[in-house]
């Protein structure tokens, strides 16, 4: 902690303990720092509490002990600079794609005309302008996740938390979305935290990997640094396969 200046720390969990039921912690005495501009991937077994870490960082859950800090201030609720993209059900089914993207802007009091304009720009930027008038139930999984991303990015959010965002789409769409996410991350200088089940996805979208091997409660994680420091990971690169093997090894996967 002493080596990091407060300005550099974007998000931090400081000795955080949290559980949904009394005396059943999912996270216990857990400390983790995410610096501005970093991209993290969290890998670990199902039910280990990875998503809970994300909800704590989003300010949607309050720790029982310890504290969550954003820019060195305690985070007592959702923050306008921290956005969340979920695997599913994050969009409002009764709003069209266009209205879903406008939602955060409207909540923040952006005038309707301007909100519409910004939403249209993001629809275009993420190549989904043709589905603006459709409801989430009419969209493909990939289109839905693009809308969810657009909704967060339209707010000029600098920290994006992603909870298995691409796990309910087919393989090809998934690779396209990973590519898109990588480009957006670099173009906009985002700080990202991704929870995923896929080792490859974790390596593509994370410069730092937090490996959790224990089941809840999470007390510690192993940190691995990607060899692709800022450069776009290429699946064909021998370093990619080698690093994936290292990650699998850390996860104690066969």
């Amino acid at each position, binding site marked *: 902690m002493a080596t990091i200046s407060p300005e550099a720390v974007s998000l931090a969990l400081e000795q955080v303990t949290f559980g949904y039921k009394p005396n059943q912690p999912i996270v216990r005495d857990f400390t983790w720092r995410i610096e501005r501009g970093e991209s993290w991937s969290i890998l670990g077994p199902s039910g280990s509490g990875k998503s809970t870490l994300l909800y704590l960082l989003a300010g949607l859950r309050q720790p029982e002990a310890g504290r969550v800090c954003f820019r060195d201030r305690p985070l007592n609720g959702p923050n306008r600079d921290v956005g969340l993209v979920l695997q599913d059900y994050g969009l409002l089914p009764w*709003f069209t794609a266009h209205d879903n993207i406008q939602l955060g802007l409207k*909540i923040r009091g952006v005038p309707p005309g301007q909100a519409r304009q910004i939403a249209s720009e993001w629809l275009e930027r993420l190549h989904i302008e043709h589905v603006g008038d459709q409801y989430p139930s009419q969209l493909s999984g990939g289109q839905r996740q693009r809308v969810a991303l657009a909704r967060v990015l339209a707010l000029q959010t600098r920290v994006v938390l992603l909870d298995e965002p691409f796990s309910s789409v087919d393989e090809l769409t998934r690779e396209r979305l990973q590519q898109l996410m990588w480009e957006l991350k670099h173009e906009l200088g985002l700080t990202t935290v991704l929870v995923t089940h896929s080792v490859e996805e974790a390596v593509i979208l994370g410069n730092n990997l937090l490996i959790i091997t224990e089941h809840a409660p999470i007390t510690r994680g192993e940190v691995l640094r990607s060899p692709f420091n800022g450069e776009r990971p290429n699946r064909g690169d021998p370093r990619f396969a080698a690093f994936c093997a290292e990650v699998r090894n850390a996860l104690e996967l066969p």
Partner: protein
Amino acid sequence: MSKRALAIDLIVLLAVWFVAAEALDLRMLPSPLQVLEVFWSELTEGKLGMHLLISTRRILISTALGVALAAPLAIVAAQLQLLDRFLTPLMYFLYPVPKVVFLPVILVFLGLTDTSRVFLITLIIFFQVYVIVRDAAGQVRPETLDSVYSLGASRWHMLRYVYIPVTIPAIMTALKISAGTAIAVLFIAESFATTTGLGYYIMIESWGRVAYANMYAGILAISLLGSILFLVTSFLERRLGRWRER
């Protein structure tokens, strides 16, 4: 529902009626032509129009009251566990009870007044709307709520962007389902101790005076009121709930 099928159904119904009336030649079964003629003259020159308007007004006031009381309560209950735990058993106990059995109780307390009739219909609408809206509001996924909260939403925003949009089609479903019952109970409630409404027109002014053509004209009017209510609520339910279709 195709318009052509509706037209064919109507023609068949009228034809069967017409043939039966001609063949049986009974005073208590006038032909549809005669009934339509009486219906039109009673509506334009007689008192049927006034009775129809009064019944419609009673239904609309009861509906507005029932929705205004039940929908907010159901939305709050969906969010407040304590209230919900207290209300759910009560609602599930009272919901299946046919509300018309409370008519004597209501009459004892509120007297032989219009308030009694409106109160009874309001009760029917209230329970139907409560049960369906509570269900719809409870079905909003926790992930959806979290994602909206993460955008910085306040309670007011949750109401405006989550609970109201999910509730409106549910209200229409409830009104569609309760339209028939509400009209049936209104008919009973209007058939005594009043001099207005379609129930009065059918039972006292027509049946009581052996004016059979008028009786059928009254039945036609109450059927139209029910059908229009059902069609309007079905249309609004589909229109406002388009997002539910896959």
